[in-house]
């Protein structure tokens, strides 16, 4: 599975090497496609490639680290 997501980092996580840790923890290929980092938050467009179950576990791990993980479409549920 090749998952395309936007990661939003808040003030607590923006300075952490979380994407490096992700690749250490899980057998996935990460590919940053866009990024913007400021003092209080960061936004990264990331491709995560690997076995389905591993990608699932990797995205859950990211959420557990306090990172907001959203599909690149962001919110698709509209009113």
């Amino acid at each position: 599975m090749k998952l395309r997501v936007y990661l939003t980092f808040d003030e607590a996580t923006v300075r952490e090497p979380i994407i490096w840790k992700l690749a250490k923890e899980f057998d996935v290929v990460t590919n940053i496609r866009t990024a913007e980092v400021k003092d209080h938050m960061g936004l990264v467009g990331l491709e995560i490639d690997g076995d389905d179950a591993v990608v699932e576990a990797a995205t859950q791990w990211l959420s557990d680290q306090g990172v907001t993980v959203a599909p690149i479409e962001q919110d698709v549920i509209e009113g």
Partner: protein
Amino acid sequence: MNIVRALKCRECGHEYEIQPTHVCEFCFGPLEVVYDYEKLDGYFTRELIESRPQNMWRYKELLPIDGEPSVGAQNGFTPLVRAKNLEKALGVSELYIKNDSVCYPTLSFKDRVVSVALSKAVEFGFKTVACASTGNLAGSVAANAAAAGLESYVFIPHDLEQGKVLGAGIFGTKIIGIKGKYDDVNRLCSEVAGKYGWAFVNVNVRPFYAEGSKSLGYEMMEQLGWKAPKHVVVPMASGSLCTKVHKSIKEFIKLGLIEDNGTAVYGAQATGCSPIAKSVKDGTDLIHPVIADTIAKSLAIGNPADGFYANRVINETGGWAEDVSDQEVIDAMKLLAETEGIFAETAGGVTLGCAKKMIESGKLPRDESIVLCITGNGLKTQEAVVDAIDKPRIIDANLKDFDELAAADGFDAAA
């Protein structure tokens, strides 16, 4: 005349052929339809537009379809109301309501975007269309698909209120209720959109879908007598409507249909879901996702796809963004109903409530033209105001009882 040139990435500028896709493969930026406007030189005139039927397709050259629409041919051209009573209540000199609460066929501005998305889906050869929605979008996709003979799927949170399920279910759509937290439901919808060969209106055909919003802006300018207002207030969910109203104004200026009036665009959100308004107030262009908690469900998008671009439009045009509490939303819904006879949904309360706040704070000048975009009908969100209206006074069926009541109201039966 077809003047659509390509899909273009809003971030890196990479162009793609017209196809059902929405994200730049290089940088993940959103794709937008771009046009060769010079092809319309000397052709796309006020007279041509005025000679056409009064629906949103009178501006069809600026909408991304080939030829005639196959879905929603009657949609659009809602009233622009001069709001004299509301002007007095707010202390402003020139105020208009663009009233999409009566948009055909499902009483919200979503009928505009859906008719473009579905017409384009038919051109692409799709037989099945879909959306994920908690209200207006679901009803519009279901109704317009039914009328066009398309099969449709609507994805909803499993615990959505029965009334909103009915609003889509009546049209024979296939409704799928999904259990789980909002983020999980959202992600599943994105995955379904990527996996099945359907036209998911706000995913793989989103660039075309979003363009439909421009028709609201075109109508506003034509109905103002071929001019743009000085100020326009737009409710923000994804932020798309804000950017597209602005685009509509820029296009009309480029085509020589109006003078540049220096229109400022203002965004309105509910405090319980105000990531874009907060970014404007904080002076940043990064949008912090939030978990929505507001009665304005149709604006409850916590991680808005066009938030960055809406923020930019507001800043570039010299507008502002505001947010209002749920109580302020209810108060504004009542104010609009009692002054202008327009029953707007909660999003309309957000728009008016924010406008009122911005007038009081001086962000919106009192002596220049203002248009408020009202995007949905109050009959769909009755639960928000059911406790806020006066209860009927009950009397027995005899004239004496009514005479007493009328006298208390200051009416003299003998007169």
